[in-house]
């Protein structure tokens, strides 16, 4: 009951003008216009990908989550905070899936202060539990953009020059309560090569726009939950590297996971949990640095003892598709191909107006398969099914 009262009754919450979001097309039908918008949006996102650009593959990203009073607003269901946390969980998973050799940390800001709730690290599970624990906390006070940026910068400053440094702010509040002039912080971030992006939950705030523009990040404001998710997904793919990022050859170690097959091996603390009070990380298994033999329980990580970057081979392979994305398929009207066209990958008759053809193997796909191939698979099944086309596709990728 107590909880109910806090949220207020349904009829006390806001007016929703759902009918205004839908627009009729010329014939008075609703569905066509909506479909059109959706497919256009899907396609546009793909087209934005540019090939052969140097990307910052080793990302160090700090998520800054606003936990001020504005986040308890109910215009996202059930509240802005809960909705945000839910989407961020998805984002974290997706982030590590697409950027295996990257790291992430979480900062929250409320009551004019900033607090680091999760250190920079490569373990998605740890971040997700942190996010889940945030759901129980209360939102109050004003956020401080400056304090949280400074906090993020303190850590990011020490990251190596070849890695990309990024900050993503999810901001519900329209005000920020700062101790000092934020403009100087912005120029400090710009000089430190930190790319700051902001997702606003309510409206366009001038200072955020300025921050993003100065640091070459992107600024966007959500329309609704779906749009919010889309915007978050845009931050999953690595951004192009800035000219000032160093290019260097990196020494990497590929440690094997050693199980405690050897009976003589004694359990020991791993390096990543040395400071923790509980027994977490105390085991006989782990990854051992090939250079100095210090033990770690997760990869990828930078060896604390000798500074070697430790990754596993599949990690690197998974990042590969960002560098050599699959070519766009050609869009042609279905009628041109003939009647009753089957999609090569799902083997169903194509219903839409357009089909997509791979220029290399000349196989036909429907829109959904096209999207699946480009977003998830990153290789064309048609090309992969014969050796000849597979070779030529690979050559095209490297050229």
């Amino acid at each position, binding site marked *: 009951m107590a909880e109910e009262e806090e949220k207020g009754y349904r009829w006390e919450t*806001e*007016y*929703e*003008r759902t009918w*205004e979001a839908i627009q009729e097309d010329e014939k008075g039908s609703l569905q066509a216009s909506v479909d059109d918008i959706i497919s256009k949006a899907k396609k546009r996102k793909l087209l934005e990908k540019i090939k052969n650009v140097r990307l910052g593959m080793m990302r160090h990203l700090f998520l800054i989550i606003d936990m001020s*009073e*504005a986040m308890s607003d109910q*215009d996202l269901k059930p509240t802005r905070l809960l909705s945000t946390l839910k989407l961020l969980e998805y984002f974290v998973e997706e982030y590590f899936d697409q950027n295996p050799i990257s790291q992430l940390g979480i900062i929250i800001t409320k009551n004019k202060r900033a607090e680091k709730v999760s250190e920079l690290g490569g373990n998605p599970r740890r971040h997700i539990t942190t996010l889940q624990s945030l759901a129980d906390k209360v939102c109050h006070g*004003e956020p401080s*953009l400056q304090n949280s940026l400074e906090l993020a910068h303190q850590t990011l400053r020490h990251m190596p020059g070849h890695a990309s440094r990024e900050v993503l702010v999810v901001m519900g509040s*329209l*005000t*920020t*309560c*700062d101790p000092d*002039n*934020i*403009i100087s912080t912005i120029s400090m971030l710009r000089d430190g090569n930190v790319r700051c992006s902001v997702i*606003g939950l*309510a*409206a*366009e*705030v*001038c*200072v*955020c726009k300025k921050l993003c523009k100065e640091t070459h990040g992107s600024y*966007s*404001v*959500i*329309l609704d939950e779906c749009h919010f998710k889309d915007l978050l997904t845009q931050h999953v793919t690595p951004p192009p590297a800035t000219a000032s990022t160093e290019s260097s050859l990196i020494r990497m170690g590929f440690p094997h996971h050693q199980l405690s097959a050897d009976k003589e091996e004694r359990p020991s603390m791993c390096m990543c949990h040395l400071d923790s009070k509980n027994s977490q990380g105390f085991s006989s298994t782990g990854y051992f640095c090939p250079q100095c033999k210090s033990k770690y329980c997760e990869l990828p990580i930078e060896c604390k003892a000798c500074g070697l970057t430790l990754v596993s081979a599949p990690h690197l392979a998974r990042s590969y598709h960002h560098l050599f994305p699959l070519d766009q398929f050609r869009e042609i009207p279905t009628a041109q191909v003939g009647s009753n066209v089957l999609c090569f990958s799902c083997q169903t008759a194509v219903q839409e107006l357009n089909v997509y053809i791979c220029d290399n193997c000349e196989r036909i796909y429907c829109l959904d398969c096209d999207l699946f191939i480009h977003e998830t698979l990153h290789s064309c099944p048609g090309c992969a099914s014969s050796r000849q086309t597979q070779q030529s596709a690979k050559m095209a990728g490297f050229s």
Partner: protein
Amino acid sequence: MKLNIDGLLVYFPYDYIYPEQYMYMLELKKSLDAKGHCALEMPSGTGKTISLLSLIVAYMKANPLEVTKLIYCSRTVPELEKVVAELKNLMDYYEQQLGKGKPKILGLALSSRKNLCINPEVSQERDGKNVDALCHKLTASFVRANHKRDATVPVCSFYESYDAHGKEMPLPEGVYGLDELQEYGRKKGFCPYFLARHAITHANIVVYSYYYLLDPKIAEVVSKELSKNAVVVFDEAHNIDNVCIESMSIKITRRTLDKCQQNIDGLSKQIQRLKDCDAERLKTEYQKLVQGLRDANIARETDVILANPVLPDDVLKEAVPGNIRTAEHFLGFMKRFLEYMKIRLRVQHVVSESPPSFLKDCYQKVCIERKPLRFCAERLNSMMRTLELVEIHDFSALSLLCHFATLVSTYAKGFVLIIEPFDDRTPTISNPILHFSCMDASIAIKPVFDRFQTVVITSGTLSPLEMYPRILDFRPVTMATFTMTLARTCICPMVVSKGNDQVAMTSKYETREDVAVIRNYGNLLVEFCSIVPDGIVCFFTSYIYMESTVAAWYEQGILDQVQKHKLLFIETQDAAETSLALLNYQKACENGRGAVLLSVARGKVSEGIDFDHHFGRAVIMFGIPYVYTQSKILKARLEYLRDQYQIRENDFLTFDAMRHAAQCVGRALRGKTDYGIMVFADKRFARADKRSKIPRWIQEYLKDGLCNLSVDEAVQVSKRFLRQMAQPFSREDQLGLSLLTVEQLDQEDTKKKLQSRMQYV
């Protein structure tokens, strides 16, 4: 781009053009062809200035005999600078397109000595009046004559060298803003102010303030020799009637009269001294006055100069009456008149009378006739010249009295005399004031309409247009209003008429003290503070109302809630304080803290300060800004308007209130990439008579569904609007819709579409 406007080749310095600019030029061309006047309304931020300039310059180029001059009048110095910058841009484009063949155009800005003076000692003064006085001290003709005799008398070297060489050497063609004039002056060692004043007679484009044309005292000196074939543009002209009235009205207090007494004493001493040493000079003056002001009359008949309303035509034809011809007689005459005025100010109750009854009373009491009174202003001027007075500034009180005498005896109609024994707010303190108030705006502007072939009255908010020709008494050939073509709906006007508790919100006099109304207004502000980013500007109807409301909000704890989201700034009557508040307001908007500015319609903030982009994402009008209706002057004016022009009191009051409301909300939107919410928080705004007087470009988006909202509904609408507006918006989105290329302009269907953007009145 090169445009074809109804057969006229117009060079337009941008690659794209807004549809409404094209229409605006078409209309302007029509009135230039017809050699008539016009009134045009086009939203701010759609490039009025450049459209005006490029069309008129092109017209001057094509018809060099018909239009020889453009006089562009604006209100403030920053606005002057903006016009000059646009003009430079246009001339650069001409140069780039035509090279050597570009039209030879001399354009220049003129402002007061304060903004132009380069004399190191004089320009240090901050106050405009002091600069004028110091300048006069160094440049008056008799001072310079003295300097020739005695080299220790200081003169201004810049003026000297200008006088020696500058007059023969015309300014080379080009565009001169205030800075360029100063620079040119420094280089050549000329005085930029006098250089500019001399140059406006042969310049093709003159940019200066309203007052140089409308205020008879200044127009007499500056603008009287401007050519007849000129186009006069009044930009931001929504308040032009008030400017006209102000320039003709006179206020006399007891202090003024005391100063007059001192002036007269001082003058009589001077005369005595002059009589002792140089009686000849007085004699020549007397001879001149017998001849009358014949020279001036000849000048006016040959149509060389602009008529001066303070110096009526028939005065020129007669000789100065005998009883004020000698200097002592004139002073005695003034003394008598002064005594009479002192008696008149000794009143216990408010007196309101017409000029004829004042004159009659004057004749009965002190035997002063109408005729000599009419010559007062001229007579005083002549005496000042004869006496070679240096400190003209010191005699301002006496010259004010003389102006009053001339005006009161010249105009039987259109003026009213109101003598108030005390201020309305402090009824116990005796502080008599005589208001000699002009009620007819057309008196001051009539010479302008009569003399120049085309007068353009334009502004972002001129609604309702049909009112202006009536109160200014002119016949326009075209009156049109243009809306803004927008690629996205970037304004969100709404009428919030009730609070969440359904209590109607209004600033009506009977209910404005109501706690529920004040609380609802407070709630509105708090809600908007929490959803609108960066800056919010609020306008109250008056300072008193703002003070009482803010005090009530403080007690109700509403201010605390506001300050959780934004910082609070308040406009006061003190200009320095207000500009400090504004500065900090802008700072708070910049650094993301957000701010609210509480200000007053008709105050300094509501006119002339732009709140573009993040400086004003929302404007809230708390109530309808009616003018203070109990004022005697206003009542007299309303009566006059009813009798003379058949304008009902209520119509005029609503018109006046709505134009100020439109001015206030228009502050937020200064261009097409900008966006803003406009909240009219008074249920009376939804009524047809008010709604129809909002400018068309706002009315268009004020749908019926947005006319009767509660606070909650308004918040929902605004939230959605703000989210949509925050989506990326690029130039490409505007192309073809609100930005056109030459090819697009030529298409048939765009032409049809364009027509719908405009409406004749």
